[in-house]
């Protein structure tokens, strides 16, 4: 499809010891948050570093905003902010120095530079540590500083490799808020993670990478809807003891019923029996409190991928 803002086509990297990552293809639209997920060692960092021109791909093609990282690195880097996996900075610099150096390299100067440095330090919540030497920073602080220096100069595209790694829950929440705010202002974000929960919360589109290949890719909504055939329903009742599982199983199209405490889960295959289910529950006198259609979780999607690969 034409018009992708970030596009990777059949990228692969062969390391000297024979380890090969790829071929990988992925694509993200302008203004999207793209989540790149996969277990450790699956090839996320390799892909990202090839996308940035830090590593030379053995084959394939990368285009970011129409630019090729191997031939137009400078033009590309004007548009990109990058936070590396497990960030580290010269330990003898302060956090503010790091951001200032990044701002200078991005071409800022004078009052504009001073204001921009203050803005990103404030946004990422490290102002109070900004005058301390980076050598004494915790993992979480390094991640925030890394995001801060990536944000400097307000780049169009952010590429963040495991930005949530080592970050405490409060800071994660803050980081997600930053991502969402950036998306609202039209920025494109590609971030990698090995934690599915992080994706589900913010990503518009995901690519699941497994053993060096993109196994599934798509917009989150599409991927997590059940597909045309399966409908999964979750109901909550006041008196579960009055629910007769055999009765529910006899409803048309029901393939599975499970009751856990006050929660009843029913899966329909090929038939939309939601109305019949709600009637049955009301008639049983169990006291229906809530009934909703549930989507697959990313975790289930991911496990399907793993199972498929293990089986095949």
């Amino acid at each position, binding site marked *: 499809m034409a018009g992708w803002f970030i596009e990777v086509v059949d990228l692969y990297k062969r390391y000297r010891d024979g380890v090969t990552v790829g071929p990988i293809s992925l694509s993200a639209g302008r203004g999207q948050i793209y989540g790149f997920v996969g277990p450790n060692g699956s090839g996320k*960092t390799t892909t990202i*570093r090839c996308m*940035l*021109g*830090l*590593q*030379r791909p053995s084959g394939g093609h990368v285009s970011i905003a129409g630019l090729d990282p191997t031939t137009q*690195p*400078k*033009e590309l*880097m*004007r548009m*990109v902010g*990058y936070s*590396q996996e*497990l*960030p*580290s*900075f*010269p*330990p*003898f*610099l302060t956090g503010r120095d*790091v951001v200032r*150096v*990044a701002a*200078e*390299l*991005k*071409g800022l*100067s004078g009052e504009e530079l001073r204001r921009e440095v203050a803005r990103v330090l404030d946004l990422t919540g490290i102002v109070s540590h900004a005058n301390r030497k980076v050598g004494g920073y915790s993992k979480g602080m390094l991640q925030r500083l890394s995001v801060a*220096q990536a944000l400097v100069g307000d780049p169009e595209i952010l590429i963040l490799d495991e930005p949530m790694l080592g970050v405490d829950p409060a800071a994660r929440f803050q980081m997600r808020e930053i991502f969402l705010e950036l998306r609202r202002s039209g920025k494109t974000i590609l971030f990698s993670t090995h934690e599915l929960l992080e994706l589900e919360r913010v990503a518009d589109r995901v690519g699941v990478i497994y053993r060096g290949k993109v196994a599934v890719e798509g917009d989150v909504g599409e991927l997590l809807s059940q597909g045309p055939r399966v409908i999964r329903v979750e109901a909550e009742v006041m008196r579960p003891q009055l629910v007769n599982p055999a009765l529910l199983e006899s409803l048309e199209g029901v393939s599975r019923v499970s009751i856990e405490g006050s929660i009843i889960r029913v899966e329909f295959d090929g038939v939309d029996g939601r109305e019949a289910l709600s009637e049955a529950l009301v008639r049983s006198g169990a006291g229906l409190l809530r009934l909703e259609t549930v989507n697959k979780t990313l975790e289930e999607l991911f496990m399907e991928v793993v199972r498929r690969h293990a089986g095949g």
Partner: protein
Amino acid sequence: MRAGRAISTLILYELRRAVARRRIILLVALIFLAEAGLYLVLTRLPATLTAQIQGYAWIIGVLVPSTLLVHVLALTIGASAFSEEYEMGTADFWLTKPLTRLEYFIGKTAGSIAFTALIVTTYTSLALALSTWIFGPQQRLDLVAPTTLHTIYSALAFLFIGLAAGELLRRSMFATIIAALGFFASLITEFYISIVTFFTPDQALADAARLLPTWGATRLTSTYIQSQLPMLALIPTLGTAPTPAFVETWQAALNIALYTAAFCAAALIRLARSDVTRRAL
């Protein structure tokens, strides 16, 4: 224009990096101590011995570090310039900014040269101050600036040998050791050749010695001074072997230029062509 600013950012960073390195600061301290020690020894010598050279005492103070120590310092600075960024995991930071690898190379290299120049200037000033304080007014101060420049230039050879070792090996300690081994192996070879040719004159062997990397670097400053002040030719330059043949300043300069260019090219090609190494976790 932007490239110029980025390069100056890198130069300033490089100065800070050098100052933060214990290995480098130790060497600088050693240089200053050697110089102070030298003057201490000179004051203890009978006045009859030192009477003739009192007005030129600053030159001795400059020659001592300029002959050997400054090259060890230069190779140490060079060896960590690129390798340490890989070790710290900060190469990704620099190389994902609007900066070509060539600009990165120029900035870091210029920073390393600037730091070396700063140290040479400082110990030269120290030599001037100490010699004036101990022996009174100094002669031929017109030679101070050109001598300093010659020394800085002579340090380039091992600075770039260190740089190339660091960029090729991407390990600062390993690169420092390899470059230092190269330096001492070259010195020993030179010394060995000078002894052999002293007993059995062999022009081919003596000429071969001129191809060694230490041959230019350790001689340039002293040859330059001797060319300006023939009477000082009597003072042996510490640490170097007797010169096998008459040396022209330009010959030493050419030797340095060749080593500098070759290792600069090797480092640049490696940097431009290869993947940026990830930090070893």
